[in-house]
C-alpha cells in the first residue's frame, strides 16, 4: 500500500545505497528541512484561504473569488504583494529586536513541528519527552511577541504585548494540565506511545467525562495561546488597532501572520494527537470488521482531517464570538479553568490508577 511511511523508507534505502551513510544523512536533513519550509508555505496559503472562505460563508458573502479558480490563488497574490512591500522600521524602534522578533516567532512555530507524527511512521523526531518538549517550546513564542511589542516603541504595541504576555503565561497552565491528564492515562511522554495507546479508541472516548472536560479546556486554552478570537486581545483591532504588530509591514508582518496560522495548525495537531488519536483511524473496541474498514483510509488523511475539523471549530469561534475583556480573560483562567483542570486531573489520575478507562 502506498503510504508516507513506505515512501520515506524507500527514499532512505535508495539514498543509503547510492551514497555513503554520512552524505545520505546530510541529504535527508536537507530534504526534511525543505519539507518543513514548504509545509509552512503551503499551510499558510491554505489556512489563510480557508479562514477567508469560512468567514465569508458565515458573513453571507462570497469571499475571494477572482484570483485563480474560485479564488484559490488569492493568498498567493497577497503573499507576493507583501513580499514586494517595503519593510519599514520605525525611527524610535530598537532595530535589532524589532527585526529579530518575527523570526523568533516563526522559529518557535517551526520547532514545535519536530515531534508531531503526520502519519503512521512519519515523524521528524520521536523524542522520549515529546509532550514536554512541545509545552516547553510553545511557551517561547511569548518572548517573540513581547520583543515585537517592546521594540516597536509604540504604545499600542506595548499594551498588546503585555496583554499577550499575561494571557499566554496564564493559559499555559490549563493547557499543560490538560496535556498532563493524557500523559497520566498513557504513562508516557513519547508521542508515538500516546498514539499507540489509542489503538482501540481515542482518549476523548476512552477517558470518560474527565477526558472530555480536559479536551474542552485544552481547546479553550489553545485558542487563547494562539491569540485567536475571542481571546485576540493582543491584537484587538477595535481597541489597539493591531496590537503588537501595529508597526510591522511587508514580509515581517507576513511572518507574524504565517506564524499565527502555523501555530493554529500545530496546536490543533497536538489536540488531535492527544485526544483524537493522531493518525490512528477511528477504532471501536473489538469491532474488527469496522476497524478494518477504517484502516483503509490512509493515516495521513485521518490526521489532516482531524486537524482541519479542529481548525474549523476555532475559526467558527472567531467569526461568532465577541472579544473578552482583559480582566474577564484572566478571571476565566484563574478562577474557572485552572481549578477545574486541577480537580479534573485528580479524577483522571484516579481513573488511571483504578484502571477504569477502557
Amino acid at each position, binding site marked *: 500500500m502506498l503510504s508516507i511511511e513506505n515512501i520515506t523508507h524507500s527514499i532512505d534505502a535508495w539514498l543509503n545505497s547510492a551514497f555513503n551513510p554520512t552524505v545520505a544523512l546530510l541529504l535527508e536533513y536537507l530534504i526534511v528541512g525543505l519539507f518543513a519550509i514548504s509545509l509552512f508555505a503551503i499551510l499558510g496559503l491554505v489556512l489563510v484561504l480557508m479562514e477567508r472562505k469560512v*468567514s465569508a460563508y*458565515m*458573513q*453571507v*458573502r462570497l469571499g475571494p473569488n477572482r484570483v485563480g479558480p474560485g479564488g484559490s490563488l488569492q493568498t498567493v497574490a497577497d503573499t507576493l504583494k507583501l513580499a514586494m512591500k517595503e519593510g519599514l522600521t520605525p525611527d524610535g524602534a530598537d532595530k535589532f529586536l524589532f527585526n529579530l522578533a518575527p523570526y523568533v516567532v516563526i522559529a518557535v512555530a517551526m520547532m514545535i513541528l519536530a515531534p508531531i507524527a503526520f502519519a503512521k511512521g512519519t515523524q521528524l523526531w520521536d523524542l522520549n519527552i515529546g509532550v514536554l518538549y512541545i509545552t516547553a517550546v510553545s511557551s517561547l513564542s511569548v518572548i517573540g511577541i513581547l520583543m515585537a511589542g517592546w521594540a516597536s516603541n509604540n*504604545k*499600542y504595541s506595548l*499594551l498588546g504585548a503585555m*496583554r499577550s504576555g499575561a494571557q499566554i503565561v496564564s493559559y499555559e497552565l490549563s493547557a499543560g494540565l490538560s496535556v498532563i491528564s493524557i500523559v497520566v492515562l498513557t504513562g508516557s511522554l513519547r508521542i508515538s506511545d500516546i498514539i499507540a495507546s489509542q489503538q482501540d479508541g481515542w482518549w476523548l472516548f476512552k477517558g470518560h467525562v474527565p477526558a472530555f472536560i480536559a479536551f474542552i479546556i485544552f481547546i479553550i486554552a489553545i485558542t487563547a495561546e494562539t491569540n485567536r*478570537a*475571542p481571546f*485576540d*486581545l493582543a491584537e*484587538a*483591532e*477595535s*481597541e*489597539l*488597532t493591531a496590537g503588537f504588530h501595529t508597526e510591522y509591514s511587508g514580509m515581517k508582518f507576513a511572518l507574524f501572520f504565517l506564524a499565527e496560522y502555523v501555530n493554529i495548525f500545530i496546536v490543533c495537531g497536538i489536540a488531535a494527537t492527544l485526544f483524537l488519536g493522531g493518525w490512528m483511524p477511528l477504532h471501536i473496541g473489538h469491532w474488527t470488521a469496522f476497524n478494518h474498514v477504517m484502516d483503509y483510509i490512509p493515516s495521513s488523511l485521518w490526521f489532516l482531517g482531524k486537524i482541519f475539523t479542529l481548525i474549523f471549530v476555532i475559526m467558527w469561534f472567531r*467569526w*461568532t*464570538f*465577541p*472579544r*473578552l*475583556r*482583559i*480582566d*474577564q480573560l484572566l478571571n476565566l483562567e484563574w478562577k474557572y479553568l485552572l481549578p477545574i483542570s486541577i480537580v479534573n486531573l485528580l479524577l483522571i489520575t484516579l481513573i488511571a490508577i483504578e484502571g477504569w478507562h477502557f
Partner: protein
Amino acid sequence: MIEELSTTEQGDLVINVGPQHPSTHGVLHLVITLNGETIKKVEPHLGYIHRSIEKMCESLSYRQFIYVTSRMDYLSSHINNHGCALCVEKGLQIEVPPRAKVIRVLMDELTRLASHQLWWGAMAMDVGALTPFFHAFREREAINDIMEETCGARLTMNYMVPGGVMADIHPNFQRKVKEFLSFFHTKIDEYDELVTDNVIFKNRMAGVGHLSPEDAISYGCTGPTARGSGVSCDIRKLYPYEVYGDLQFEEISEKGGDCFARYLVRMQEMRQSIKIIEQLIDNIPGGEHLAKTKAVLKLPKGEFYSRVETARGEFGVYIISEGGTTPYRIKFRSPGFSNLSALDHMAKGHKIGDLVAIMGTLDLVIPDIDR
C-alpha cells in the same frame, strides 16, 4: 477610587485614540490617560470634520440650508431635514398636508431602523464580533433601496422641504416596505440570538459605563443614551410632532444605566419603529404631498425652535430671523455633541476595552458632533 485617579502622574500612559482609529467610526480624536489598562481620563479633541455649517447656513436661503443639514448626522438625514422643515414651517405657519405628514413619519422611522441596524453591526464589531456587521448591512441595504426609489439618494436624502416632501412616494414604496418588514421580523430575532443572548457579549456590556439618571440629565444626554438610564426624553412622545400623537407606540426605557441597558433600548426601539411603520403603511392619506408655498421664503422677525427625535436623541433647530431671506443666526443642537460630553464621566476607572464598548453604545456620528 475615581477621585484618586483624576490626575496625570509619572508612569501614566497617554495615548491618542484617533483621529484615525478603527473604533472611533470617523475622525474623532480622544486623548486617553491610562494607568496600565485602566482609564483615568478621556479628553475628546473635536473639529477634524468641522465645516461650520452654522456659518454656511447664514448665507443660504430657507430652502437651501436644509441640504447642508443632511451632512451633519448622515445616518439620520431624513430626521435632520425634518427638524429644519418643521422650524421653517413654524415660522411661516404653513400647514403641511396630511399625506406629507404620514410620509415624513414613515421616512423618519425607516431612517431610525437603518441607523439602528448600522449601530448594531458597528457595536458588535467594537466588542470584537465581526460577523453581525455584515448581517446588519444586508438588512440596511433593503431600506436604502426603498429610499433610493423614492428620494433618489441613499444617504443624504434632502427629501423633506418646507411644506411637505419634495416628491410623492414611488408606486412600489408600500409594497417594498411591507416586503422588508416581513423579512426583517425574522432577522431581528436572529440579531438577538447572535449577539444579545451571547454570554461574552452580556458580560462585556453589563455594569460598564454606568450613567445615573441625574448625570444623564445634567450632561444633556438624550435619546437611547438617556433612556438607558431611565430618563424619559423621547420628543416623539413628550412633544409630539406630525402624526406621532395619534400613533400607538411605547417610549422604551431601561433602568440599568449601563451599556447593556442602552443596547437593549436600541434593540427594542427597532421593534417600536416596525410597529409605527406597520400602523401607517396601509393608511397613507391621499391628496397633495406638498403645500403651496411662496417661491421665496421669508421668515418673519423672531425666534423659532423645533425639536425632533433622531436615532441618537434630541435634535434642535434654533433659527433667529431678522425678516430676511436667510437666517440671521442658526443653531443646531446635535444629540451626539451632548452625549459625547458624558464619555469621560462614564469611562473613568474602566478598561480600554470598555471605552470602546461605551463609545459603541453612545452611537456617535462624528459629523453630527463637529457640524
